[in-house]
């Protein structure tokens, strides 16, 4: 399509295995047949985001589980002061909190999935799950990085990659803060956006 280009964004420290770019429309002629007949205004894009944010809420549980799984295994193998680091209270605190948060997110997200399948999930409910789960996954990635010690910064383990990816996910499709305001507006009835 003449005038449409997608210059790639280089130098990312996040989502490095996938392409991100600008969408540039310079005097593009859009055929009338390409216009959606059944939607007007922002309702369209916002409807898409509901569906995408729902997918994100599930997706990040995968990243969180991968970080927890790797940290759990490492804590049983890594010996310091004559015993596995998983035998120390501070490591157990990290691991116990991780699996607690993962389990809570799994329950929340499964229930949201049931509501979504019945077309009953509200945008505010989806916001809550997106915000909670992405933050949960990011915190778990950071704690898992600590359990892996110096090895956690290498590509031998998936931790830093997940952590850097999640820094994008906590911002895209509605930032962590914006989703908080959606919940705030939903429960109080007051719009704090402007």
């Amino acid at each position: 399509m003449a005038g449409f280009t997608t210059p790639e964004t280089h130098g990312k420290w996040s989502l490095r295995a996938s392409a991100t770019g600008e969408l540039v429309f310079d005097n593009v002629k859009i055929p009338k047949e390409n216009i959606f007949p059944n939607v007007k205004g922002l309702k369209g894009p916002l409807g898409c985001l509901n569906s995408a944010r729902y997918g994100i809420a599930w997706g990040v549980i995968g990243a969180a589980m991968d970080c927890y799984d790797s940290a759990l295994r490492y804590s049983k193998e890594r010996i310091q002061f004559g015993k596995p680091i998983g035998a120390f209270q501070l490591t157990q605190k990290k691991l116990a909190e991780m699996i607690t948060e993962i389990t809570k997110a799994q329950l929340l997200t499964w229930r949201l999935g049931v509501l979504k399948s019945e077309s009953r999930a509200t945008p505010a409910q989806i916001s809550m799950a997106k915000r909670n789960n992405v933050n949960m996954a990011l915190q778990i990635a950071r704690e898992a990085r600590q359990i892996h010690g110096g090895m956690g910064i290498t590509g031998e383990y998936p931790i830093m990659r997940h952590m850097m990816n999640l820094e994008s996910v906590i911002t895209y499709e509605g930032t962590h803060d914006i989703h908080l305001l959606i919940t705030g507006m939903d429960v109080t009835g007051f719009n704090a956006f402007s």
Partner: protein
Amino acid sequence: MASDNFQPHDYYLMDELLTDEHKLIRETARAWVKKEVTPIVEEACQTTTFPKQWIKGLAEIGAFGPYIPSEYGGAGLDQISYGIIMQELERGDSGLRSTASVQSSLVMFPIYSYGSEQQKKKYLPKLATGDLMGCFGLTEPDHGSNPNGMITNIKDKGDH
């Protein structure tokens, strides 16, 4: 990454809330990620390359438009199936998951929900197979969290 020894974690026996179909879909996605994604994802990230062969694989496991009806090339699955596939993909890498979720939710979903019958027939089957790849933009240099302020505009010139 050295080797992928991932084991799933299900502390509250959530599997009992899933159907056999859900579990089958999960195993299919998980096996594909272990075979095709985690062995090469570290290298792909270090060299900032998107392994293009992933597109075909994503299409084969039904990751493009899982909830789009099969008459338009989708897998005709429920929302929990879609979620499970996203979970397994992001277990591999978030960039991989976003490739599938952008295609599904930000490209196929609007065409399916808001498009004409002709538009649906023209685009959805090719998007489901990955022969067409879509994209989505909702941030401008001066407008991110405030999409109402976007200044991109269109002018009606009669025929376009």
